[in-house]
């Protein structure tokens, strides 16, 4: 049991960066083709990361590097918890902790664009958190457990009972992946009023850590999506991979057909979606009490 979990964690630690990097590569390639251009090589994200690790670091202050370290560690740790079959809520809290480190890192720079970026980043977290929590609760209500390894052992894919949660999750996935229309605090391009927002003042290998952490996070989010689909049958796993890819493709599409909306729109729409899709779904679950 312990060995199996250790193995899962090691597999996650080793494979997630590849999966995350490939997903970003795919993203850039597909985006380029959406725009009618050739686009970079599929492996471009890996080149970028390798380059960043080899760049000089211009540090604004030493504290920042430490805080980015905290962000990285807890992002990866969240993934480990999740893929070791741990508690969803605990994973959620670990993620929050990581995010707070990220925010402190950006704030410590004392730079206008980092600082304004953090305010928006906080707003983004405030928008996405309720839905993440509700989704975890949804899983619990359906499968009777917050533990990932128990959730995947369910008889019927949770999405059957959680269609609203799933849609709500897709919505906030856009926020979490920092994709248009919600790439308010920092986006993959600096061409916004915030420059690079929260990551404006990070350079070289410190910035590389952020990118790497984002890949881990990407895989974690895909894991969440898979959790909606996986059940105890073997075929649910390839199905889950397919659903993940479709969702990712959908996110790329959304990224490409939307302008960046303003923060108040994001706030209102995210809470509304959470309330309507997540809330109603939960209410139905509570009322029907299908399970238990």
């Amino acid at each position, binding site marked *: 049991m312990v060995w199996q979990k250790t193995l899962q964690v090691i597999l996650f630690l080793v494979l997630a960066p590849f999966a995350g990097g490939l997903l970003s590569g795919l993203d850039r390639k597909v985006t380029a083709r959406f725009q009618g251009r*050739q*686009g*970079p090589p599929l492996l471009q994200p890996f080149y970028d990361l390798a380059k960043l690790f080899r760049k000089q670091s211009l540090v604004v202050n030493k504290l920042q590097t430490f805080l980015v370290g905290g962000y990285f560690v807890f992002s990866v740790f969240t993934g480990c918890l999740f893929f070791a079959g741990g508690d969803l809520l605990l994973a959620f809290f670990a993620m929050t902790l990581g995010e707070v480190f990220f925010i402190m890192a950006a704030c410590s720079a004392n730079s206008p664009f980092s600082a304004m970026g953090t305010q928006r980043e906080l707003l983004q977290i405030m928008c996405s958190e309720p839905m993440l929590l509700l989704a975890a609760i949804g899983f619990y209500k359906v499968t009777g457990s917050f533990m990932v390894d128990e959730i995947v052992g369910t008889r019927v894919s949770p999405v059957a009972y959680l269609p609203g949660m799933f849609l709500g999750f897709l919505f906030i996935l856009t926020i979490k992946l920092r994709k248009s229309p919600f790439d308010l605090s920092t986006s993959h391009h*600096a061409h916004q009023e915030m420059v*690079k927002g929260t990551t*404006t003042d990070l350079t070289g290998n410190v910035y590389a850590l952020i990118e790497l952490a984002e890949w881990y996070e990407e895989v974690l989010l895909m894991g969440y999506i898979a959790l909606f689909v996986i059940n105890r049958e073997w075929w649910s796993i390839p199905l889950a991979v397919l659903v993940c890819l479709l969702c990712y493709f959908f996110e790329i599409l959304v990224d490409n057909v939307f302008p960046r909306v303003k923060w108040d729109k994001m706030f209102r729409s995210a809470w509304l979606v959470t309330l309507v899709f997540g809330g109603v779904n939960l209410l139905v679950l509570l009322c029907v009490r299908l399970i238990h």
Partner: protein
Amino acid sequence: MKMSQSPWLLHYDGSSCNGCDIEVLATTTPVYNLERFGVINTGNPKHADIFLITGGINSQNAPVVKQIYDQIPDPKVVVAVGICACDGGIFKECYNILGGVDKVIPVDIYVPGCAARPEAIIDGVQKAVVLLDKKRQQMDAAVRPAAGRA
């Protein structure tokens, strides 16, 4: 994996007439698509490898250019795009033009043209990228003996 496979670009408009400026932007668009070479137009000096600058230097933008240059981490290369950036161009006799970009920061590659063509900009970037690898090696070489002594 070489540095040259991922050159991120920062563009600043010195005192250009916009001609070169919009040509730089045009190279990032579908028809020329600089991203084929891994180039991202970052817009943030702290993430850039290539400093692409159009237009000449005047007394008001000289400190800005210098500051942005300083905020780009090593190894970095500077590409002066357009005749204005090369030597002040048709404006070089103007009272407020100090000259080309090399008046304030070292320039690695000059891209001629008024305006510089997208193809020329692509050529310039590709030449600059090779220098990135070279500079990285020099940095390593500079560190190693120092470490050896310590």
